[in-house]
């Protein structure tokens, strides 16, 4: 047996951490259909709600008549803006009423109906008679800031520019503009400079397979029980409290059918169900259709960047000046935080750059809301800036791998994070991971230089090219987190169970099971003997959920500390039994033993008063000092006749400190192809009809996604350098697995065809235009 228990956190001591030896706790439920998702859940007397939506991008309701709908047998309530407090506003700052007289995008809610069945609710919608006054609309952020543009919220914002700053993230004041060093002088020292406007603005859909939804039961007063398919009950509560500050929410979640950072706040789903629940005094369920999810739920941010980047003769970036226009759609759902992280992530990639003037404008337009998606602003900015970094590299004829190696953040580098504060990178260094990944991909063998294909078919029709991209995020230490670990002795055996109390919703990353592995190792118990409480915010202490790959460090730190705390309590209680000091004790067989007096042992059960339990407490305090890193290499094949791009090969490389579950980590790495990441460079986009301003890619037939029979080979290269982060020396990395993939793919395409392509996505028409064949 391993002597684990004396702060001995090294891989050889772990029974579960770092191993592929136990299935996820919910594995059997998932493969047998027992796993519960929101849509599988029902409450007695539950009503189903449906929403009537605006056919116009910008309009005013001239008149609305709900009487016919109300008469329909089975309809229980119909509400319009006239029934809803206009101070119940969503967004940051509070911007847009839940139901308003003015409609801001095609799909904006006009009325909610609650009925006995879904069919009745649907049948009621066309019975609502509405007269609209169409208003001029603007759907491009650069147009929206012009003086003559339609104003969406004239009382709140000038030129549609949303107030910067998100107070809970930025306690010292708003942070939206990074100024450092002497920008003019910085450019004077540069040998290679690129300047251009680049867009990543097709606002692709993360499209989790499970649509957003909520069930709300009004409990009287301002008390509500909410069942929601949010990936974070805590964030869902927080953002809904912006709308109703004094509401007392008890948010409960089930397994979540994919989120990718996207299904978090769910304000519209929760609030529409809440309003109807108060009106009917019955539980109300809202579950979006796929078309609603595609056309009305949050997309990726639109990103338009005019920037100038300068590099010195050694390939080190010395100056960055830029104006980042962020299209938030019809409202900002704390997008200010994403802007802060985007600026932060740019600095991690260009960490040696002393001179910055990176300004941002967050803009409202007449489109469905944009918001949080895996990559959290970093991907949207990186997809633009990396193309310009690429141009400076190309001018200097630098190998991008060498440039990224020189410029990427490592221990000692200082950056300004989303809180506006200065942070210094601690413990991390990714040079080796970059080198090993590049070797495994055979970058040196495949990279022939800028604009030169790796391979060409004999007739010259097919060409291949390679590209690479790098990104990182310091949010992996974000947000304060708490946990309890409770030892619960069995009544009739000498064993004990261990219960972890912390708020984690499972949305695919396996982190509920990963923290169980950690606790099982700290207490030296079987994985099967450790349970975790359901993801509900009332029964668990504070936990923001699995956003920004924070799960590993934040929850890992909190639960490991809680397990250590209860372990120390057990040691203290064991002193009279073992008659030694606690520093020679260790955990074994659901009890405590000591190295000092072999054979001495006392069970936990004996140490804890009958029928009671013993609880440890642990916390993690926010810390942005250990950014992660993910480097992706891609090879594409382009058909120069048809303009078709085929993804041939990928390699994802990282150093994660210590892998908690290598198999799950491998899947997180591969998942960078999904969630509107890599394929935003090839075919994923939302297309809006320019005349009627409706989304043409409104369902899964029109919206392009990658099917099973079109996957490239994918290799991973994961180093485990044991960084100084928390007990298990791990970092989280899954979030950013696809964040640099789009820019890497663009680079590969440009190298394959020998012409620089900068339009996302590089669909056949884009390629053929670049080749001057269209």
């Amino acid at each position, binding site marked *: 047996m391993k002597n684990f228990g004396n702060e001995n956190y090294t891989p050889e001591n772990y029974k579960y951490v770092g191993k592929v030896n136990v299935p996820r706790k919910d594995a059997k439920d998932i493969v047998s*259909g027992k796993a519960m998702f929101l849509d599988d859940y029902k409450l007695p007397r539950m009503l189903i709600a449906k929403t009537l939506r605006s056919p116009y991008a910008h309009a005013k309701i001239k008149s609305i008549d709900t009487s016919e709908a109300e008469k329909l047998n089975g309809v229980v309530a119909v509400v319009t803006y006239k029934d809803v407090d206009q101070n119940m506003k969503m967004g940051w700052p509070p911007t847009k009423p839940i139901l308003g007289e003015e409609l801001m995008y095609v799909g904006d809610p006009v009325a909610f109906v609650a009925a006995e069945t879904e069919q009745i609710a649907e049948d009621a919608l066309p019975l609502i008679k509405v007269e609209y006054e169409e208003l001029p609309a603007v759907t491009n952020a650069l147009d929206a800031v012009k003086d003559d543009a339609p104003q969406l919220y004239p009382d709140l914002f000038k030129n549609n520019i949303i107030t910067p700053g998100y107070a809970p993230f930025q306690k010292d004041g708003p942070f939206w503009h990074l100024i450092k060093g002497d920008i003019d002088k910085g450019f004077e020292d540069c040998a290679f400079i690129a300047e251009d406007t680049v867009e990543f603005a097709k606002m692709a859909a993360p499209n989790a397979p499970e649509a957003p939804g909520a069930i709300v039961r009004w409990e009287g007063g301002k008390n509500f029980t909410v069942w929601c398919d949010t990936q974070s009950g805590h964030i869902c509560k927080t953002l809904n409290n912006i709308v109703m500050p004094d509401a007392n929410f008890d948010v409960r979640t089930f397994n979540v059918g994919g989120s990718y950072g996207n299904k978090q706040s769910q304000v519209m789903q929760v609030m529409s169900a809440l309003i109807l629940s108060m009106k009917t005094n019955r539980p109300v369920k809202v579950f979006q259709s796929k078309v609603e999810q595609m056309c009305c739920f949050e997309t990726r941010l639109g990103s338009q960047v005019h920037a100038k980047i300068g590099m010195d003769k050694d390939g080190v970036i010395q100056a960055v000046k830029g104006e980042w226009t962020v299209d938030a759609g019809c409202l900002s759902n704390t997008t200010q935080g994403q802007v802060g992280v985007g600026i932060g992530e740019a600095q991690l990639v260009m960490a040696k750059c002393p001179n910055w003037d990176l300004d941002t404008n967050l803009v409202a337009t007449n489109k469905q809301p944009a918001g949080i998606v895996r990559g959290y602003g970093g991907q949207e900015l990186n997809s633009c800036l990396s193309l310009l970094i690429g141009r400076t590299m190309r001018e200097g004829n630098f190998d991008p791998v060498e440039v990224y190696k020189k410029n990427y953040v490592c221990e000692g580098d200082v950056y300004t994070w989303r809180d506006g504060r200065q942070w210094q990178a601690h413990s991390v260094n990714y040079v080796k991971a970059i080198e090993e990944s590049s070797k495994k991909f055979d970058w040196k063998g495949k990279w022939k230089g800028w604009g030169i294909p790796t391979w060409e078919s004999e007739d010259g029709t097919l060409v291949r090219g390679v590209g690479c991209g790098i990104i990182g995020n310091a949010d992996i230490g974000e947000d304060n987190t708490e946990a309890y670990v409770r030892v619960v002795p069995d009544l009739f055996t000498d064993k004990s169970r261990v219960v972890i109390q912390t708020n984690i919703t499972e949305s695919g990353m396996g982190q509920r099971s990963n923290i169980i592995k950690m606790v099982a190792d700290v207490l030296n118990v079987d994985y099967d003997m450790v349970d975790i409480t359901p993801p509900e915010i009332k029964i668990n202490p504070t936990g923001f959920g699995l956003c920004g790959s924070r799960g590993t460090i934040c929850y890992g730190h909190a639960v490991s500390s809680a397990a250590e705390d209860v372990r120390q309590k057990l040691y203290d209680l064991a002193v009279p039994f073992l008659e030694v000091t606690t520093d020679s004790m260790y955990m074994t067989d659901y009890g405590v033993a000591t190295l000092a007096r072999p054979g001495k042992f006392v069970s936990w059960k004996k140490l804890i008063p009958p029928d009671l339990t013993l609880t440890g407490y642990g916390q993690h305090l926010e810390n942005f000092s250990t950014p992660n890193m993910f480097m992706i290499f891609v090879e594409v094949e382009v058909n120069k006749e048809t303009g078709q791009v085929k993804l041939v090969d990928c390699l994802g490389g990282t150093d994660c400190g210590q892998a908690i579950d290598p198999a799950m980590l491998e899947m997180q790495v591969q998942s960078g192809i999904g969630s509107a990441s890599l394929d935003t460079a090839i075919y994923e986009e939302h297309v809006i009809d320019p005349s009627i301003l409706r989304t043409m890619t409104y369902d899964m037939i029109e919206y392009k996604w990658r*099917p099973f029979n079109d996957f490239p080979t994918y290799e991973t290269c994961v180093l485990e350098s044991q960084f100084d982060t928390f007990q298990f020396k791990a970092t989280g990395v899954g979030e950013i697995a696809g964040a640099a993939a789009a820019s890497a793919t663009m680079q590969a395409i440009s190298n394959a065809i020998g012409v620089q392509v900068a339009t996302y996505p590089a669909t056949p028409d884009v390629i053929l235009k670049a080749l001057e064949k269209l």
Partner: protein
Amino acid sequence: MAKDTINLSVNGIDYTFSIGDNFGQVPCNETLLDTLRNRLNLTAAKKACDEGACGCCTVIKDGDAVPSCMTLLADCDGCQITTLEGLSDPVTGELSELQQKFIDYYAFQCGFCTPGIIMTTKALLDKNPHPTEEEIRDALSGNYCRCISHYHVFEAVNAIAGRPEDLDEKWEGRR
């Protein structure tokens, strides 16, 4: 002429449904997916796109994998339907070999697409116990997985098709 009752077997149990618009009857436009989920409480098959594009609602109908959101109950008279709930042993809960392989190879993340993927695979293997890689890819081409569990799904299905990747070798020193 349209029938007014529909007889079908779901996971080996026989059901008779009355078609009509009265309370408790199945309207003629009700999908098999809604019947399974709302009337029989078989919720493994998921409603995701509800238009035949994503495969999350896949069940097996008379041996073929079908999107149950595009299948009317009224068209299932005399049919044998199998859902994911029908794969494990009804009494002991013991998993089928295919389900167990999905666990062994970690072939899911969020698991929302998994019921459909397993049922598509099951229909393929029932007809063709040793499919080639290409046959597996083609069979699954209508199944959407946004978490990108594809590589692990291939490993799981390959294993059962007779091309197992040795997990002890893959995770050497990690078992």
